[in-house]
């Protein structure tokens, strides 16, 4: 009997992982402050000055984050129910085709997907003002952002869908058998056993989707969706390396920060005991 060691094994305490979770935001913050301080000391051209106003950068960061958040929420709303459906006895035969479609979504080059979506959806948002999407989401968020979000949902659906399916199918059949054998309904088995046990794998997929989305959001400027890509583009067009660099650094810090949040979520939401 292993009484004394018991509680420590449950949490699976890994000092390096714990340390990573604490150190990452500190390092990211320090890098940000250092860069900001260094940038302040640089002799900026007027063009750079006007591109790098705090208002611009804050707005673009906000846009980048909304694109990330909205597209990730969209991904979750579609991929998780779909993943559940495709692992049920009746849905299993559609699993292959569905994964093929999701694979294709991710295989299309990002730029291509954005332009394609603009071509398909642009008309919806561009012309008809009586259109319900245009009158609601379009007005509220701007048509570019909506199209970006839809594209990113298509782009990032695969990891969540695949991990939901893998997470659910890898649940020990004996555990499911035991649940059913004790008189749990299929639904109770799904909600109380299968999903909690699939959570770690699903969260890994969500984290991947988050990182894809925050990175891809940088391309939203291509179709007028805003984001930090706007600053990078201005820098390139004006040949202002500091502007490009600033856009790049902020994008990278944002991506790392989002990844960190994903890591924290994985840690906090993983059920105890597994």
């Amino acid at each position, binding site marked *: 009997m292993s009484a004394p060691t018991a509680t420590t094994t449950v949490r699976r305490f890994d000092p390096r992982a714990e340390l990573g979770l604490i150190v990452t935001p500190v390092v990211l913050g320090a890098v940000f402050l250092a860069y900001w301080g260094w940038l302040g000391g640089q002799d900026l051209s007027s063009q750079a000055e006007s591109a790098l106003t705090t208002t611009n950068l804050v707005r673009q960061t906000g846009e980048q984050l909304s694109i990330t958040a909205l597209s990730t929420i969209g991904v979750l709303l579609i991929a998780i129910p779909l993943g559940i459906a495709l692992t049920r006895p009746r849905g299993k035969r559609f699993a292959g085709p569905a994964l093929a479609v999701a694979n294709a979504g991710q295989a299309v080059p990002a730029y291509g997907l954005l332009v394609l979506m603009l071509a398909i959806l642009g008309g919806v948002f561009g012309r008809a003002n009586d259109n319900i999407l245009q009158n609601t989401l379009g007005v509220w968020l701007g048509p570019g952002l909506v199209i970006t979000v839809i594209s990113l949902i298509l782009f990032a659906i695969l990891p969540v869908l695949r991990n939901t399916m893998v997470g659910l199918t890898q649940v020990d059949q*004996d*555990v499911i058998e035991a649940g059913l*054998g004790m008189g749990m309904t299929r639904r109770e088995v799904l909600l109380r056993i299968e999903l909690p046990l699939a959570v770690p794998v699903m969260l890994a997929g969500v984290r991947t989707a988050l990182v894809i989305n925050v990175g891809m959001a940088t391309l939203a400027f291509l179709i007028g969706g805003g984001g930090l890509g706007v600053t990078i583009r201005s820098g390139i067009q004006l040949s202002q390396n500091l502007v490009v660099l600033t856009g790049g650094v902020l994008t990278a810090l944002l991506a790392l920060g989002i990844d960190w949040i994903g890591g924290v979520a994985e840690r906090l939401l993983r059920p105890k005991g*597994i």
Partner: protein
Amino acid sequence: MSETTSTPQVGAAGMVSDRDPTDAPVMIHLDGVEKVYTPGAAPAVEKLTLDVHKGEILVLVGPSGCGKSTTLRLINRMIEPTAGRIIFDDEDVTDIDANELRRRIGYVIQRIGLFPHQTIAENIGTVPRLLGWDAERTRKRSDELLDLVGLEPGIYRDRYPKELSGGQAQRVGVARALAADPPVMLMDEPFGAVDPITRDRLQNEFLRLQAEVQKTIVFVTHDIDEAVKMGDRIAILRERSVVAQLDTPARILSYPVDDFVDDFIGSGSTLKGLHFERVSGLAIPEYPVVRRDTPREEARRILDMSDFRWLLMLDERGRPARWLNETHLADTSRPLHEVGPVVRAVVERNATLHDALEAMITSSAGQAVIVHRDGTYVGVVQIELLTEVIGRMRREARKHYEDLEATQTTDTP
């Protein structure tokens, strides 16, 4: 073997039982239950009619693929039968809601299937929660059950399954199955995945538990030894779950009805049968005994007059001390109570004949001394006596089947 008394292998619910399990009312009645997976193909379970009586452990045993697990799963409708009725305590449950039925039946599978993300207490509380018990009652019940299966609630209640050893997990599996106090338990090779030593201990514990809780149990195994040990009755199944023989372990071992059963129970069935008779049931003949203070000449006279080659010397408190034969009596260099091998092979009166045989084999005199609980002498068992018992068991079992056949022939004109 030490000088201490040998106790029967199994405790309260031991292998020796005079109770006829079929005297109890029928708890589960399978009436022509059949499972056909592919229409037209051979059924997995063929028209099975079987009664399980209240409070008995009925073991379904048979070679791999004979359909014993399928049969078990037909009872709680984890597999839906394609024909036949399942009667549960006089209620036809063939068409009722399967989930509702399963909440009334404890179910233990080989790989246990504890929920890894739930604590032991939560695992045990599964069925109570489904039945809508309040938290307090559920908590009390899981503590009670942990106690019952020999796990300290204070230590184990809040642990997670992965912190348990195989044997502990199996106990929790049994506790979980007992949670809502179901009258019936279905157990599918429940002790199959643990090491032999742990298995033996779990089996003994379970038999003790069963003596206390008196559930109606259907138990599946492929191991005839486990079947013999656990079963009040054994159903030996051949392909498609056809019952080859259904009877008490003692009778099956003494009288296998056909070659299939004979092959399946394998060699050593006679030895296994000795588990079912107790020493106390033997008619023990007189045996020559001397006391520690018996003079040498007197001892020699007793040995000469008896038909035996050994004398048994008792100590001053009447406990068996040494074996003496001709040679020892002739050895005058030492006092009589210092010559001759010390008696080591003693068995208590309630020991099984199997224990007695084991004692005999290890004894230097080739015979086992029977003692009272306090160690005082009762008698001596010899191999011939066991041979007689085996012969009697065989005759009785054969007669039982002949009588059975006779009644069947007279019943059907």
